[in-house]
């Protein structure tokens, strides 16, 4: 798997009288197989626009998005999305929600429950298979959302602030869970967050975006998720000198953008 964004720009047409908005300007980004790319930036920097571009919900004004050298021309199951507010379907139970993508693809009932059960186990939902999604806690609902996206067997998993709605403690547990799932499945991930700490902890590559026009201002290679997966406790990783130094650096960049508002 290799996703390439080649010089992509997005210009939203102007509301009457105003100048058109350059939401993204000349974005160059490559996501290689197994990579965990995290996007962060002040609000209005185009993170979500970038995700919509990769998901195929939005066409670039200029430039190309290539998945394994095929032009992306719309949404598809090889790029499944996890949403911030989980967007589960309340008329389906947990198992049916996880199997939803497979059902759409016409996979037989027995087969799709076999596959979805694997991801239900992976995300620790085995005791809630038949539960109604609206009776679950926020953290559990998001696990269903992740299992559901993984069950489609995407080449690239797109996560749009998936942990943004969770409380701080659940959020740290969920970060570790997602990293373990990422290691287990070997999927490539594109992940949006507002939390610098989360971005540094989770990613292998960090892109810091700046607004007006939305662009990638800085790129960092990150070692922290691998340190965690190799056995260093999450809190030790997040307390290390290297982590804190980089966190302050990234915060400086983002705050300097924020002050321009």
């Amino acid at each position, binding site marked *: 798997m290799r996703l390439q964004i080649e010089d992509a720009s997005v210009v939203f047409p102007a509301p009457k009288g105003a100048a058109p908005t350059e939401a993204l300007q000349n974005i160059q980004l490559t996501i290689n197989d197994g990579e965990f790319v995290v996007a962060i930036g002040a609000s209005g920097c185009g993170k979500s626009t970038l995700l919509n571009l990769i998901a195929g919900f939005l066409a670039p004004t200029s430039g190309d998005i290539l998945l394994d050298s095929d032009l992306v021309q719309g949404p598809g*199951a090889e790029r499944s*999305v996890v949403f911030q507010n989980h967007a589960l379907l309340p008329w389906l139970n947990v198992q049916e929600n996880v199997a*939803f993508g497979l059902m*759409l693809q016409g996979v037989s009932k027995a087969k799709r429950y076999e596959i979805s059960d694997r991801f239900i186990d992976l995300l620790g939902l085995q005791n809630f298979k038949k539960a109604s999604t609206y009776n679950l806690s926020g953290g559990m609902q998001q696990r269903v959302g992740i299992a559901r996206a993984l069950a489609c067997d995407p080449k690239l998993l797109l996560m749009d602030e998936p942990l943004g709605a969770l409380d701080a403690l659940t959020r740290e547990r969920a970060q570790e869970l997602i990293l373990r799932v990422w290691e287990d499945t070997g999927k490539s991930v594109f992940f949006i967050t507002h939390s610098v700490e989360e971005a540094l902890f989770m990613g292998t590559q960090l892109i810091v975006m700046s607004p007006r026009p939305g662009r990638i201002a800085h790129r960092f290679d990150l070692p922290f998720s691998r340190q965690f997966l190799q056995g260093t406790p999450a809190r030790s990783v997040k307390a290390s000198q290297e982590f804190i130094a980089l966190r302050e650096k990234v915060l400086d960049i983002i705050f300097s953008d924020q002050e321009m508002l």
Partner: protein
Amino acid sequence: MNDTAKTSNASRRLGLLGRLSRSRPTQPGETYGVPGSGETRYLSAATVIGMLFAWWLITTLGWVAPLFLPSPQAVIHAFITISENGFTNTPLWQHVLVSSARMLVAFFFACLFGIPLGLAIGMSSVARGMFHPLIELYRPIPPLAYLPLMIIWFGIGETSKVLLIYLSCFAPIVLGCSAGVRSASIEQIHAAYSFGATRWQVLRHVILQAALPEILTAMRIGIGFGWTTLVAAELVASREGIGYMVLTASKFLQTGVVIMGIIIIAAIAYLFDWAIRYLEHRLVPWKGKV
């Protein structure tokens, strides 16, 4: 004087206005400040019983002539007599059955055409452009106004009666369903697309499912409108039906039968409504929980 007595004194001093303008602290397990919270069963039962009692009292004391308001006993008597002997040579159950059948046929067709049309209006700008103005134009017209037209076009048979009820069910069903299309969140729709759904699958598995609570609500409102038109529909050239019974009884000043007919219509309408609410409870247990 202990604390409780002081508080109750204070709240008594506030009077009715004071109690309306400020909420009491809640008991454990309740939520403070929820509008309209509290048990209503006893109050509702008391209201109904109080009404019946007032009715009985007014008629027994002879304050109102029986011609205008017969006593509850007289209405019950009318019910028993008509149950035994029928009304205008037709048994009561047949009147009920004929009216219910007209309602059901009209409601069935209103759902059959109204639900797909409403969904189409919600889903496509072409359908909305074509049909929305038509529905909006005829919707506010009272059915009695176009009843003569129905009779001129379709005669005095069953067709015009059923059609009148149909038209009064149809508009609220269409409008409710077209609004229901917007129930699915954009994230739910995007999720389905990102799992490889086709447009048809999104329609079938997301939009339609999410619209189901609103479709059922539209059906409830539609059938309610249908019942309000029943009497008008049975106004002309009927020989059977509850509406016919009420109208005929009023011509002969049998006020007791009129009231009995009204109560029967209310009871059947309530039964229909209850059936749809039961359906709602079974089909969309998730309603209001997301």
